[in-house]
């Protein structure tokens, strides 16, 4: 993954030089450990600021919504699937895009790594397989595969599903992963236990809406949480309202979520709200054999009707 950057810069500079695109969207180096900042280049010289490492987890598709210019965009497997969804949902046109695919072996879980150390992390140095975490009075080398974001460790679409250029050779896809172990555990709970689980899960929420806003799917001109006529959900910290926000938001992502992890990654208080969208993802797979964002030419199951659609829920 570290070796991609030269190729990324070369492709980006060429696209800008040949005026194939007006901007390329990528990442520049962050100011704190394990963070990079989404960034654009509008000239070949600006491409020099681009970086690529295991801290590029933010889903860049989020920056395409309703843009009108021609854009080059770096796309990991998950970003590419959201780009497909964006194309299906008319949020961007395919011919506006030059997709620079970046095969991905997973992004680091900043929160998990931070929680492993008592003090503050000063620096994280990365090589092909490991990271070395340094801080005041500690230094430890960790295997990257042990500290990936959970959605990355169970990802089965690491290679971009749609691309015009590739920044590196495709990586091997994972085949022996159990994507839904956590969902099954929750499904097995009694109704009372489920209630408790969700109460605990969403208790720390401060309603900053980072999860919603980091998500490429959440592009409504006015989100239901912001509607006042009617007011679907109240604005305070009443737990019922907080839960309503999360549950409804998850339902709006049914059949569309690619489990890119943007929501969980962005949360300032560490809520794993992905369990909500994953349940819906699992249902879509089981009911409709559907995985979101794989093919721009197939309509998603929840906006089409087929006589063969499962109807076992009608009793």
């Amino acid at each position, binding site marked *: 993954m570290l070796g991609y950057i030269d190729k990324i810069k070369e492709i980006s500079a060429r696209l800008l030089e040949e005026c194939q695109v007006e901007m390329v969207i990528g990442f520049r180096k*962050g*100011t*704190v450990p394990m*963070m*990079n*900042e*989404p*960034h*654009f280049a509008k000239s070949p010289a600006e491409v020099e600021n681009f970086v690529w490492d295991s801290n590029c987890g*933010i889903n860049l598709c*989020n*920056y395409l919504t309703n843009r009108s210019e021609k854009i080059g965009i770096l796309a990991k497997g998950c970003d590419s699937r959201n780009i497909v969804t964006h194309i299906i949902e008319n949020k961007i046109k395919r011919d506006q895009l030059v997709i620079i695919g970046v095969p991905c072996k997973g992004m680091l879980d900043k*929160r998990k790594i*931070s*929680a492993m150390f008592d*003090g*503050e992390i*000063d620096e994280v140095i990365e090589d092909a397989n490991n990271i070395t975490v340094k801080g*005041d009075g500690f230094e430890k080398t960790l295997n990257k595969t042990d500290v990936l974001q959970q959605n990355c460790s169970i990802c089965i679409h690491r290679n971009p599903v749609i691309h015009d250029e590739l920044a590196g050779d495709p990586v091997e896809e994972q085949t022996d992963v159990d994507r839904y172990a956590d969902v099954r555990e929750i499904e097995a709970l009694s109704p009372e236990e489920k209630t408790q689980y969700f109460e605990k899960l969403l208790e*720390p929420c*401060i*309603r*900053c*809406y*980072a999860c*919603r*806003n*980091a998500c490429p799917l959440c592009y409504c001109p006015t989100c239901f949480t*912001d509607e006042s006529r009617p007011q679907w959900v*109240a*604005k*305070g*910290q*009443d737990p019922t309202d907080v839960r309503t926000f999360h549950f409804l938001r998850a339902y709006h992502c049914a059949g569309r979520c690619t489990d890119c992890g943007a929501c969980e*990654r*962005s*949360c*300032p*208080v*560490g809520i794993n709200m992905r369990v909500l969208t994953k349940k819906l993802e699992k249902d879509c797979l089981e009911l409709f054999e559907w995985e979101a964002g794989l093919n721009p030419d197939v309509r998603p199951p929840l906006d089409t009707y087929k006589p063969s659609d499962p109807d076992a829920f009608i009793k």
Partner: protein
Amino acid sequence: MKIVQIDKDKWETGFQKLTEKYRLFGPVKEYDFHNFKELDQGQVPDLTCLNTRLSPKSIIYPQTEVMFEYSLDENRDDHHILKEANKTYPPQAVIGIRPCDAKAFALVRLNFDTPAYKDPYWLKAYEATTLVGLACDAPCRSCFCTTAGCGPYHEEELDLLLIESGDQYYAKVITDKGEAFLEAAGWNHKLDEKTALKEIEARKQAAEDKICARVKTDNLRGSETNALYNAPFWEAVSFACINCGTCTYVCPTCWCFDIQDENYGSCGHRMRNWDSCMYPLFTAHGSGHNPRATKLHRVRQRFMHKLKYYVDKYDTGIQCVGCGRCVRLCPVNIDIRRVCELMNNHDSLKDTCAV
């Protein structure tokens, strides 16, 4: 000046006494981070915490606060009358608040306590509160308090400053409230001022030397508002922003709120909730027009407010205490230190020439 030594083995006994007089708040680890929580009987705050994930501003200024209540039940004499919610403000103490978070109350006060307008809820809660600070001997790398009008041993707004020294804390009394707090705890082992101050001064110097992040703010007041507003860097600064409320909600100095009525059958209440200038709804007019319609507008507003409008209006420095929370928690790594540098270095003449 009075400095009292508190042996750590007398810590818990003191807390037991304190609970008779105060509601106590302190850093508590929940999940994988610390936050200020009301302490249960016998619970002591975890002062090993670098700083809490959220600022303690919510202890005085809750995220959701009921102000009025009403009834629509016409069988009641007071139906359709908005009545002040029944609230009490018993004495409370925040233990282990960092000097940056305490100083933030001085900034917020400029908004809630003016000659023309006094916010009763904020003021009453503030007056009932004793702030027991904890000096910062291990500041975070993203802290920049010393150049944001503050510092790891800054005393502004504190009633008492605790300094950790081996098996004890030194408690430096700053106000009468602080004195009363010590008395209530039964901590009365007075130290020789001179010797203690010498040690505290040395520790303060060492802590300040550890602050490695800085911001330069010297040109902000002199710069021309319109030139900064129209500066060319805002597109790049705002590009990554997703317009969530994280930076404003974790900020100890952000004070904006929104007022909402909530109805339950025939009764209801009027409350205020934190609001964020990052949200489109923050400035949306009833007509549908939004003067800050794009994220560029909103991001620019946040930084212009903190680093320019506030600076001009109050002339007391920037509206930031350098706690670094927004730097650490921004989901897309927009860094106020980087933006402050751009603003402070901005040469408006250069723009004019370029045009």
